[in-house]
C-alpha cells in the first residue's frame, strides 16, 4: 500500500486521539484512584467503549454512502449479525453455568425443549471460528445482496428501501423464537470472554482498547481504499455513475467491493459492541437504528471518515446526556439537533470546521455534492 501517504492532517489528529484513548482510558481507569480527577469511572469505560463501536459503524456507513453514494438504510443488519456471531460465542462460553445447568444448551434452548444444539450453533464455542464468522456472515450477506442489487443497477432510493426491507425481514425473522436465536430476549447474561470475566474491570478496559484499535484499523482500511485510484473511481461513481461506465469501469464490482468491506467493518463493530453492553437482541435490526446510523454520519459530515466517527460520538453522547438530564423532553432536543444540523451545517460538524479553516488551506476531504444518491425518477 501507500504507507503513511494515506493519512492526512485531520486523520493524523484523529488517530492520535483514538490511539491515545486506547492507552490512557484503561491506564486511568485501572491505575488512578477513584478520587483522582483524571480517573475514568467504571461507568464511563463501557459507555465510551459503546461509543467507539458506534464510531466504527459510522465509518463503515460513511465508506459506502460518502464515497460510493450508496445510501444504506440496512447497515444495522450487518452490525447485528456481527453482534450475534459474538453473542453466540459468549453464550457457548457460559457452558454449565446457565440457570438450568445444561453444559451445552443455552438456557432459552432448554426451556424451548431443544434436544441438541442446532447446526448453525456448531463451532461457536471456538473463538477463532466465531471471529471468522463475525466477518464472514455479514460479508456473505452483503456480497449476496450487493451482487444482485448492483448487477441489476438498483440505485438511489430504490436501493435504500430494499436495504431497509432486508434488515426489517431479518428483524422479524430473529424475533421468531423458532429461529433458535433466543427470540425477543436475544442473547444475554454472558459470563466471560476468552476466559476472562466479562464484568471484570481488566476485561472492560481491554475491550475498550480493542474497540479503539479496531476503530483506528477500520479507519486506516477505509482511508487506504478511498485514497487509492480505486477510491477515485468510487467518487467518480458517486458523482457520475453512467459516465464512469462509459469509461469502461465495471461499476457494480467497485460498489460491491466497498459494500462488502463496509459490511464486515459493521460486523466487527457489532462484535465488539455486544460484550460491552451485555446483550444482543433483534431490536438491533430495527430499521430505525439503521436510519440513525446514517444520521450520525450526516451530523458529523458525510464523505469524511473522521466526521462520521465524530457524529456517532456527538449524537450518542447527546443521547446519554439527554435521557438522563431531561427524561421527559430529550426527544425534543435530539429531534431539534437533527433539524438544525441539516439546516445550518449541510456538511456536518466537520464541514463547519473545514469551512472555518478553508480560508487558510483547502480541506482535502471531498466535500459531498448535492447528494445525488437518492434522486427519485422525475
Amino acid at each position: 500500500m501507500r504507507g503513511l501517504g494515506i493519512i492526512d492532517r485531520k486523520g493524523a489528529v484523529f488517530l492520535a486521539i483514538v490511539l491515545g484513548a486506547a492507552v490512557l482510558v484503561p491506564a486511568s481507569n485501572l491505575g488512578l484512584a477513584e478520587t483522582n480527577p483524571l480517573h475514568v469511572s467504571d461507568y464511563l469505560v463501557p459507555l465510551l467503549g459503546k461509543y467507539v463501536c458506534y464510531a466504527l459503524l459510522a465509518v463503515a456507513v460513511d465508506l459506502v454512502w460518502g464515497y460510493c453514494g450508496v445510501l444504506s438504510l440496512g447497515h444495522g443488519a450487518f452490525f447485528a449479525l456481527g453482534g450475534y456471531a459474538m453473542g453466540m460465542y459468549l453464550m457457548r462460553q457460559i457452558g454449565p453455568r446457565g440457570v438450568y445447568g445444561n453444559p451445552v444448551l443455552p438456557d432459552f434452548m432448554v426451556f424451548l425443549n431443544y434436544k441438541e444444539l442446532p447446526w448453525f450453533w456448531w463451532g461457536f464455542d471456538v473463538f477463532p471460528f466465531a471471529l471468522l464468522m463475525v466477518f464472514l456472515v455479514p460479508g456473505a450477506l452483503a456480497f449476496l445482496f450487493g451482487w444482485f442489487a448492483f448487477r441489476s443497477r438498483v440505485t438511489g432510493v430504490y436501493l435504500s428501501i430494499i436495504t431497509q426491507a432486508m434488515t426489517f425481514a431479518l428483524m422479524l425473522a430473529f424475533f421468531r423464537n423458532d429461529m433458535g436465536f433466543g427470540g425477543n430476549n436475544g442473547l444475554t447474561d454472558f459470563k466471560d470472554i476468552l476466559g476472562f470475566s466479562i464484568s471484570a474491570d481488566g476485561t472492560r478496559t481491554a475491550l475498550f482498547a480493542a474497540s479503539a484499535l479496531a476503530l483506528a484499523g477500520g479507519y486506516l482500511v477505509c482511508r487506504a481504499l478511498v485514497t487509492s485510484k480505486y477510491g477515485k473511481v468510487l467518487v467518480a461513481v458517486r458523482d457520475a455513475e453512467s459516465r464512469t461506465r462509459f469509461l469502461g469501469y465495471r461499476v457494480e464490482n467497485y460498489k460491491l467491493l466497498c459494500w462488502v468491506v463496509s459490511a464486515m467493518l459493521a460486523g466487527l463493530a457489532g462484535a465488539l459492541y455486544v460484550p460491552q453492553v451485555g446483550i444482543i437482541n433483534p431490536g438491533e435490526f430495527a430499521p430505525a437504528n439503521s436510519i440513525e446510523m446514517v444520521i450520525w454520519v450526516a451530523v458529523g459530515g458525510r464523505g469524511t471518515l473522521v466526521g462520521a466517527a465524530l457524529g456517532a460520538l456527538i449524537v450518542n453522547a447527546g443521547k446519554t446526556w439527554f435521557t438522563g438530564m431531561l427524561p421527559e423532553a430529550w426527544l425534543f432536543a435530539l429531534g431539534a439537533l437533527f433539524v438544525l444540523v441539516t439546516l445550518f451545517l449541510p456538511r456536518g460538524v466537520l464541514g463547519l470546521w473545514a469551512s472555518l479553516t478553508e480560508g487558510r488551506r483547502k480541506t482535502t476531504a471531498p466535500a459531498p455534492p448535492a447528494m445525488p444518491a437518492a434522486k427519485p425518477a422525475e
Partner: protein
Amino acid sequence: MNDQASQPFSRTHCEKPKDCARTARSARRLLGYVFLLAALTFLSGVQPAAIGAASAQPASAPLAGADLAPALALLGTDSYGDTDAALGRLAVSTNTRAADIVEAIRDGRLLFDPQSKAVFLRMPDGAVTDAATGAAVGAPPAGLRPVRVNNRVRRAIDAAAGALALLSPDNQKRLAAAAAVFKSRDVSALPILDAALAKEGDPKVKTALEQARAAIIVASQSVSEPERVSAARLIAARGDQDALAILSSLPPNSPDAVKAAAADGIEAINRSLAMWAVAQNVWYGLSLGSVLLLAAIGLAITFGVMGVINMAHGEMVMLGAYTTYVVQEIIRTSAPFLFGWSLAIALPLAFLFTAIVGIIIERTVIRFLYGRPLETLLATWGISLILQQAVRSVFGPTNKEVGAPSWMSGAFDIGQMSITYNRLWIIVFSLLVFFALLLVLKRTALGLYVRAVTQNRRMAGAMGIRTGRIDALTFGLGSGIAGIAGVALSQIDNVSPNLGQGYIIDSFMVVVFGGVGNLWGTLVAAFGLGVANKLLEPFAGAVLGKILILVLIILFIQKRPRGLFALKGRAVEA
C-alpha cells in the same frame, strides 16, 4: 375485612361444580317449561291459571301462575346464580312486566337495595319505579346498585328473551329466536317450534325454524331414522360452520344411515368452505391493501412527487388519528347525538390540521432542502421525533379511545364469507381518496402547477408560477391526505404516539414498489402486496408471510430497478 370489602365474593357460592351444575340444569328445565307453556297458551287461549294444571310435572307446581315476587326476591341477593334462576322464573312469568324486567337486567337498569333487598327498575328516561308494580317511587333509597350481569347471566337473558320471541309478531325477533334455538338445540323447544312452524308465514323465518328443528331432531333418539336423515340433509344445506359443528357432533349411537348422511354433508360443506376460504382471504388481502394504500398515498405525494424522503409522514397519519379522538371527545361531552357523524366531521378537520402542520414544516424546514433529498430524510426524522414527543406530552403516552359509529361496526355474510363493515368502508374510502387525489393532480390548475414545478422548477418559475407556494401547497396536500388516512386508521389500530412508526416502513415499501412518482403504481402495489400477504398467511403464518413479502419486494426490485410502473426511455436518465 368489613362486609363491604367482602361484597364482591359473596357471589361466588357457585364455585363448587355441584351447585353450578344444579343451577344450570334447573335453568334448562325451566326453559323447557317456558316453551311448553307458551305453546299451550298460544294453541288454546286458556287463561294463565289453567296452564299450571295443563303442565302436569310436579316440579313445575311452584311455578304455576308464577308471580314476580320470588324472582324479584332472588334478584335482590346480588348473586349470579340467583339472578340466573330468577331469569328462569321471569321467563315463565305471565306477568306483562317480565319482559321489561329482563330487558332492564340486560341494560343494567334493574337496581336493588343492598339493605332491604328491594328491587327497583329505572326507566330509560331515568325515573325509578318499583320493579314489581311499575309504580313510580318518589324517593328511592340511597345506595341502590344495579343487578350485575356476567356471561352466564347474559346467556340466560338471551335464552329467555329468545324463547319468548319465538312467537313474537316481529319477523326479525322470530328470526333471531330461531337462531338462538338453533344454537341451544334444546329438545324441550320442539313443541313450540312445531307450533311456530305451523303458523309461520314468512318463508325466511320458516326455513330458520325448520333448520332449528332439524338441529334438534337430528341428534334425538326419539325421532324416526328417515326423519333424522332428512334433518341431516336440511342442516347440510346450510353449508356453514355451525352446520359442520352440528353434523360432526352427532351422538355416537346414531344409526348408520344418519351418520352416512351427516358424513356426506360434512364433506360437501368442507368442499364449499375451502372455496369460500380463498375468496375470504382475497377479501382480507384487499382490506389490508386498502390500509396500505391509505398509509402510503400521502407519501406518494410528498415523497413520490416532491422527492422529499418524508420520515415524518407517519406522524401526519398519527395527528389525523388524534384529531379524530379530539373530535369524538368534544362530541361525547357536548353533542352526543352527533356521534354517528363524528368521523365525517373529523375528516375535513384532520385534513386541514395536518395540511397546516405540513405547510408549516415545508416553509420552515424542507424548502431549504430541495435538491438534497437525503437531508430531508435527516430533518424529517428529527421532526417526527419532535411530533411524537409533543403528542406524548400533550395527550399522554397511553392509547386513546376512538369509538366506531354504529354504521361502521358489525358484519354481513356473502355466502360463507363474512364482510365486516369497517373494512368495507375503509376500502371504499381509500379508493375515494385515491381517485379524488388523481383528479386533483390531473384536472386542476394546482395539479398542473405541481407537475410543472416538480418536473422543472426553474422553467416553472420562469413562467411565473410561484414555485414556493406550490411546494407548500403540495406538501400540505400530501400531509392532509396522510391526516385523513389517520382518521380511517383510528378505526382499526391503536391511537397512540407510536401509531405513525408502525406505518412508515410499509408506506415507503408500497410507494417504491409501485414506482416513485406514479400514483397508479402505488394503488397496484398496495393491493398487490396486501392480497399476496393474506394469501401467504394461511400457509406461512403471519410472521413468515411478512418476511416472504419483503424478500419478494427485494427480488422484484432486481427485475424492475425502478418499481412496478417505471417511466421508460430517455426521460429516466435525463
